[in-house]
């Protein structure tokens, strides 16, 4: 008996221990010994960083980029804000002025901002820029080696505050390399790197900052990084916008979506990078202090990125424009929007993100052209565009979402997008028949009599929203008699996308500055010169491996006009029209990121009401937040 008693006793003790332990340790919250009201906690979507102690961002694929390093500690010549920007979209950061090109775009001169210092007290000068360029050209495996080597013939610093580039061939977009859209070529500290013999093997720990924050501490297991505001933050480029609010920045890995939601409900995560829509709605409902880009539905911040259904242009089935169009007309975008974003999507019929300053330059001017666009189904001519679909989505949602849904048409267009292609199975069938397909019973057969099989590659839980969009499209195609299946690629998506190992793919081959109408950021890569032969890896971003003579002409002309030349926009519209006629990808919607911000400790987050920058915290541009955030009093 006593034996048994002791055992049970032990169990009781154990359980009591379990119960009390939390109480004991509860004293320390998420962060031990860090003043919560001076700390801004942000999600780093990279998750847990495997080699936490690596800060040499110039070495390929080494450490983390968005653990605060590129947002808070590094700097480069220019920034283009994806939204309105603190004082305009274009920001001269380390550069004192815009880039000056010579007439034929073979030389670029940069004037640098004086009085900027590294966190170890050394002044920043042109020598650092030159060293950044020459070092990466010398060591060909560094992050921007290839890009620089390809363009730069020579670089020198006539004086400490100016840099002069000679280019190998004309390139009116060379400065883009040094212009932050998410990231750019970051400037490295000459006085540190000139001492290391192999910059590829150098971990740059602890990093010397050019930005307003320095590394305070980090987790050797890579789950969190803490950055401290520099005492001499006035000697950084951020100073001219005012005093940074947070004394500490903590970039953390909060785990999967539901854990992120829980964390913010417990006020232990100020900025969530992204969650599933349901998580967003939950926070909107249950967490009074949480705010998002839009005050109400659809909440999410539209990134200047355009998810689309991408055809593999080298797949025989999809070489025929009519087939591509038929599949497009089998899509009910309303259902896709509901399935993926629960309606919180900004749809776009054309290959330009409906975000930032793009609608005014592309979507709005092209509405009439789209409305009159005619498609020959072989039996008849139809006008597939329905400019009312954004409106219809809003009406669909109004019953459940109520006054959260705006009523002003402009607001609706901004939130839900303008028009899209009317689902038209009849026309789709006609197009398929025109392309030589036959419908036997309920199923479509290809011209050579095989079942019409389409696999749609999606990424899986890494991008739930895109996965859902893909599943919905598959479902619609299946209902139309096509043997469609979802193919969850998980981590292999990137490889398979590059290798052209897919029928169709939910991804994006359209990314833009957002704040600037220039499309070259992605469009240049659509030139036929970059389309890899089938079976060989495809350079980014022309994943559709599709080329068209007219488009090549457009691209080549863009290369020769200035960055801010209005001609650039006209050429952009040309691209849009070609893409509509050819439908190489089926544009769906902007990549709306459910970035949620907790106002318990901080106020002044960027929102649609005050769109001074992109709140998505892994964008280097999000550094603008730091100067606008004020502690909640």
């Amino acid at each position, binding site marked *: 008996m*006593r*034996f*048994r008693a002791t*055992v*049970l006793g032990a*169990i009781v003790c154990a359980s009591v221990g*379990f119960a009390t*332990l*939390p109480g*004991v*340790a509860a004293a*320390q919250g998420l*962060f*031990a010994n*860090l003043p919560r009201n001076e700390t801004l906690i942000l999600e780093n979507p990279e998750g*847990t960083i*495997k080699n936490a102690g690596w800060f040499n961002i110039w070495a*390929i*694929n*080494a*450490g983390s980029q968005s653990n605060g390093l590129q947002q808070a500690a590094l700097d480069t010549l220019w920034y283009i804000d994806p939204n309105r920007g603190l004082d305009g979209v274009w920001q001269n950061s380390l550069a004192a002025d815009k880039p000056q090109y010579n007439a034929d775009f073979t030389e670029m001169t940069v004037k640098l901002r004086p009085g900027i210092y590294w966190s170890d007290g050394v002044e920043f000068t042109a020598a650092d820029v030159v060293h950044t360029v020459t070092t990466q050209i010398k060591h*060909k*495996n560094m*992050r921007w*080696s*290839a*890009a620089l080597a*390809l*363009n730069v013939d020579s670089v020198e610093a006539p004086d400490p505050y100016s840099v002069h580039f000679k280019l190998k061939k004309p390139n009116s977009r060379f400065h*883009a390399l040094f*212009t932050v*859209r998410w*990231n*750019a070529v970051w400037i490295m500290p000459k006085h540190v790197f000139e001492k290391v013999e192999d910059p*590829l093997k150098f971990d740059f720990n602890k990093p010397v900052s050019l930005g307003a924050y320095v590394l305070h*501490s980090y987790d*050797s*297991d890579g*789950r*969190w990084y803490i950055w401290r505001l520099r005492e001499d933050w006035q000697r950084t480029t951020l100073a001219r916008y005012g005093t940074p609010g947070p004394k500490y920045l*903590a970039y*953390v890995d*909060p*785990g999967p979506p*539901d*854990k992120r939601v*829980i964390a913010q409900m*417990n006020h232990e995560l100020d900025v969530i990078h992204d969650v599933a829509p349901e998580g967003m709605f939950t926070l909107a409902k249950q967490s009074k202090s949480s705010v998002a880009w839009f005050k109400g539905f659809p909440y999410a911040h539209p990134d200047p990125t355009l998810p689309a259904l991408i055809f593999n242009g080298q797949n025989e089935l999809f070489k025929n424009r009519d087939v591509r169009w038929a599949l497009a007309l089998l899509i009910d975008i309303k259902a896709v929007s509901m399935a993926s974003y629960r309606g919180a999507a900004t749809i776009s019929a054309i290959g330009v993100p409906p975000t930032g300053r793009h609608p005014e330059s592309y979507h709005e001017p092209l509405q009439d052209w789209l409305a009159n666009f005619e498609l020959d189904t072989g039996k008849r001519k139809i006008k597939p565009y329905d400019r009312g679909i954004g409106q219809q989505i809003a009406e669909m949602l109004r019953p459940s979402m109520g006054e959260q849904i705006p009523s002003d048409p402009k607001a609706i267009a901004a939130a839900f997008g303008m028009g899209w292609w009317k689902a038209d199975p009849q026309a789709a069938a006609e197009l398929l028949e025109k392309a030589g397909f036959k419908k036997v019973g309920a199923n479509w057969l290809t011209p050579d009599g095989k079942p019409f099989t389409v696999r749609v590659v999606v990424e899986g839980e890494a991008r739930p929203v895109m996965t859902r969009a893909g599943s919905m499209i598959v479902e619609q195609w299946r209902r139309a008699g096509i043997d469609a299946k979802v193919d969850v690629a*998980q*981590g292999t998506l*990137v*490889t398979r996308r*590059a*290798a052209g190992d897919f029928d169709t793919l939910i991804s994006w081959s359209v*990314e833009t500055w957002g704040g600037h109408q220039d499309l070259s*950021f992605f469009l*240049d*890569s659509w030139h036929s*010169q970059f389309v890899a032969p089938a079976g060989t890896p495809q350079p*980014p971003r022309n994943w559709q491996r599709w080329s068209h003579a007219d488009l090549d002409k457009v691209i080549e002309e863009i290369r020769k006009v200035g960055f801010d030349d209005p001609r650039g926009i006209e050429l952009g519209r040309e691209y849009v029209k070609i893409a509509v006629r050819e439908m190489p990808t089926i544009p769906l919607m902007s990549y709306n990121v459910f970035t949620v911000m907790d106002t318990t400790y901080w106020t002044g987050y960027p929102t649609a009401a005050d769109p001074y920058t992109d709140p998505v915290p892994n964008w280097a541009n999000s550094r603008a937040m730091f100067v606008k955030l004020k502690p909640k009093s």
Partner: protein
Amino acid sequence: MRFYATYLAQRLGQFLLVVFIGINLTYLITHLTPIDPVEQSIAAVTSFGNTSPEAIGAMRQSLRELYGLNGAPHEQYLAFWRRIATADFGPSLSAFPTPVSTLIARALPWTIGLLATATLLTWVLGNLLGGLAGYYQNKTSLKVLAIIAMGLHPVPYYIVAFVLLVMFGYLWPLLPIAGGKAMNLGDQLSLAVVLSILKHSILPALSLLLVGLGGWFLGMRSLVSNVVSEDYVVYAELAGVDRRRILGSYVMRNALLPQVTGLALSLGAIFNGAIITEQVFGYPGVGSLLVSGVYAGDYGLVLGVATVSIIGVSTAVLIIDLLYPLLDPRVTRA
């Protein structure tokens, strides 16, 4: 002791076989993966950055050389065994240029610390209670325990872990739901650190305990109720030998023997646990390292972790096997 020698030889042979087959399996599978580490690295570089197409072409070439993926398969295989022999899995592709061994070395303490302790605790507790339940067959308290065990035992581990997570992380947010210890505590050992580590390990450990307990409990219970009808137990009872002595030295002692073998066999399953536990509770360790390695197509890392886990598990099994004769004097004769 000739018997022991042969026994030892057998065990060692088995050990080597397990390691050999296991490692070849992982090598085979990992090298069949469609993931191209180079493309992965390039993707990581260009996913958001603005790098021009030709640039990528140039970079791809140099990376291939850098990662040494150009050798013929058999060369890669031989090189692979050479590296295993020297416990050098090369640099991690997803954490280039940090060596895989470093990553594993960093993760291993977490996994071992959590799983080893949880498993042993479960085993001891499960056998104790099961033994008692088998011996005192009509103690209600133990009957209740048996029913609970029966209910919990067959539930898949993920579900138990998940339910715990929801209960204590969300419905009643009492315990941390991610990480091995509180952030910004510093790495030097202090009471705060220990407490924090304990606190973070409660949920994972509890989940492992709940799931493991049932099996041992039920197993031990039926073993004991078989042993009590053995002659030597009956005889000892006839001799009026002290009940506790009978329970301890006669019943438990003999019933435990198969359970020890069971422990050895279950060690393989422990590593399965590692992956799920670490995924569900965001706990650091080799399990999550493996998954992330697989996602990133990190050959070196995946191979390293799989290899280490296989060697680790089989070593543990070996140790138990070698200790077994001390527990059961008959084994080396059999």
